[in-house]
């Protein structure tokens, strides 16, 4: 296979060209495998269960909107979306604030034990959240936090902190000393420097860790499964699972509920794709 275009020395930048047909064929095949099941679920929501049973792989004939309407009006969908939003936003906010404060100290203050403290946090990368779930449940029970938003938020914040600090610290370290000196001459304290200069400058990194924490929290299942037995506090992943086992004969309804539950994550990802990829890029570089 030939290189599509040799760069012309004068421009130095390759023009975006049309790829070869083979490139498109492969890319299309990959994309189809990735999203065909998702499209099937969304379209399946527009059929009746009877249609689906008669021909599982068919198209809607006729289109019915009843499933989506039913899920949106009669189920706990909105309640669960609200709970998911509260928990994810709470987690994200706390992770970003606490992570930034700790990473700022680890990046810009020099004191004895600094590297020790950093290693102490990075150790958390080796503590899988899944393994700690049973003792975590027992502890939250003893603290009377079961069936509260905190039961999900606090552990999620704790387990997100190590990665957050690992990503934020290099960003904060990279801010030139001169900026800090200039701020000091203008009368800013170190905290003023954090608030007025370091925070705005590290906004891309903050968005990245925020997006990562939000997505992880929005999709989380095991922790809410154990600590949120109260149906009114259920999040969307719990809702999807409950709906699918409660109405297992209503295949079309389950498909509709599942596609509606996918929608927020897809929208969010489309908007934040650059940050997610950019953030992982930073993490890969170290």
């Amino acid at each position, binding site marked *: 296979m030939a*290189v*599509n275009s040799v*760069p012309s020395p004068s421009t130095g930048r*390759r023009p*975006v*060209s049309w*790829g070869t047909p083979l490139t*498109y064929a492969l*890319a299309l095949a*990959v994309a189809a495998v*990735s*999203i065909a099941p*998702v499209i*099937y679920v969304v379209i399946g929501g527009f059929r009746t269960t009877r249609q689906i049973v008669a021909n*599982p792989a068919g198209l809607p004939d006729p289109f019915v909107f009843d499933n989506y309407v039913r899920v949106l009006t009669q189920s706990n969908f909105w309640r669960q979306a609200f709970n998911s939003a509260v928990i994810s936003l709470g987690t994200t906010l706390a992770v970003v604030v606490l992570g930034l*404060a*700790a990473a700022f100290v680890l990046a*810009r*203050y*020099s004191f004895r034990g600094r590297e020790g*403290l*950093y*290693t102490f946090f*990075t150790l958390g*990368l*080796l*503590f*899988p959240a899944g*393994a700690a779930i*049973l*003792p*975590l449940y*027992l*502890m939250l029970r003893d603290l009377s936090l079961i069936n509260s938003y905190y039961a999900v938020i606090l552990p999620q*914040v*704790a387990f997100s*902190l*190590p990665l957050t600090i690992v990503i934020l610290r290099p960003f904060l370290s990279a801010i030139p000393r001169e900026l*800090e*000196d200039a701020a000091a*001459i203008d009368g800013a304290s*170190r905290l003023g420097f954090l608030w007025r200069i370091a925070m705005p400058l590290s906004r891309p990194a903050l968005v990245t860790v925020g997006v990562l924490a939000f997505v992880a929290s929005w999709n989380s*299942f*095991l922790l809410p499964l154990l600590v949120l037995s109260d149906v009114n506090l259920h999040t*969307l992943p719990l809702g*999807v*699972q409950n709906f*699918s086992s409660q109405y297992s004969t209503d295949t079309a309804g*389950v498909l509709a509920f*599942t596609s509606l*539950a996918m929608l927020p*994550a*897809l929208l969010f*990802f489309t908007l934040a*794709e650059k940050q997610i*990829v950019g953030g*992982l*890029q930073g993490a*890969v570089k*170290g």
Partner: protein
Amino acid sequence: MTSANQIRMPAGGASASPAGPDGAGRASARRAETRRKWYEIIGLTTPAVVIYVMFVLVPMGFAVYYSLFRWRGVGPPTEFVGLRNYTLAFQDPIFLDALRNNAIIVFGSLLIQGPIALGIALLLNRRFRGRAVFRLLVFVPYVLAEVTVGIMWKLLLTGNGTVDALLRSLGMGGLVHAWLADLDLVIWTLLAVLTWKYVGFAIILLLAGLSNVPDELTEAAAIDGASWWQIQRHVTIPLLGPTIRIWMFLSMIGSLQIFDMIWVTSVPAVRSLGASATMATYMVDNGFFARLWGYGNAVAVILFVISFVAALLFQRFLLRRDIQGAITGRAK
């Protein structure tokens, strides 16, 4: 290293602190400044340290303690049994099945997702119109919640469901299987679904790594007459080493803990026979739902030790140079 990030007084004493002209005043001002610095250090780090210690480190400590008891979770544990819960676990064929399944998922993910992801990432790293859209579509499975994806595939793979209907309509009726009910097949079905879900993650990482490969290198190779494939083989892929190792690490840790997808996709009866159990589902089934808290915590400790040792070995032998300063501290 330390001095580079050090907080110093600006040169020339033009600081905001009210230092007097005489030496004694300056010294006391410096002491006040040092004290203030420590207040800030403690004030800014304490919330993170407290939450981290309380919800990450302390629970694992308690798990070790609880695992030494036979305990139904009511009142304080009293019936000390030593290491019996651990020996019981390793004598339970279901747990050994779970271990085997975790091993299948760890190695299956690495061996199947790695080459696929590398191929797709190299493809999507080529410059062509519409590339951004293709990238977005390929990431879709990774973004969706494991639970949602699990329910979706459960519906698709159910007996006489969509996948079977599709196979029949394509004249491949002979391939129809009891995907999720066949005890010998179910773990491979789940591995396939996991591959579909997580290959996008490997692709994101690899594309991020590819964007760090300087254009000058590939362009120089192109000018020297190297074909596209030669450039990938001899320039690009070798430079991806660190990214590939980090992906392997994350994939391995994730595979050892895998829970959500297995839990919602596989039928409980199949899981309880061990055919589709993993360490995490086994732990939750026994510890939380069967209320064998002491036993469940022992399984938690086993899961933790296996993940921890695997992570440390990986760090020690493969990752050392890739994550600067993280975990090993001195890697540079």
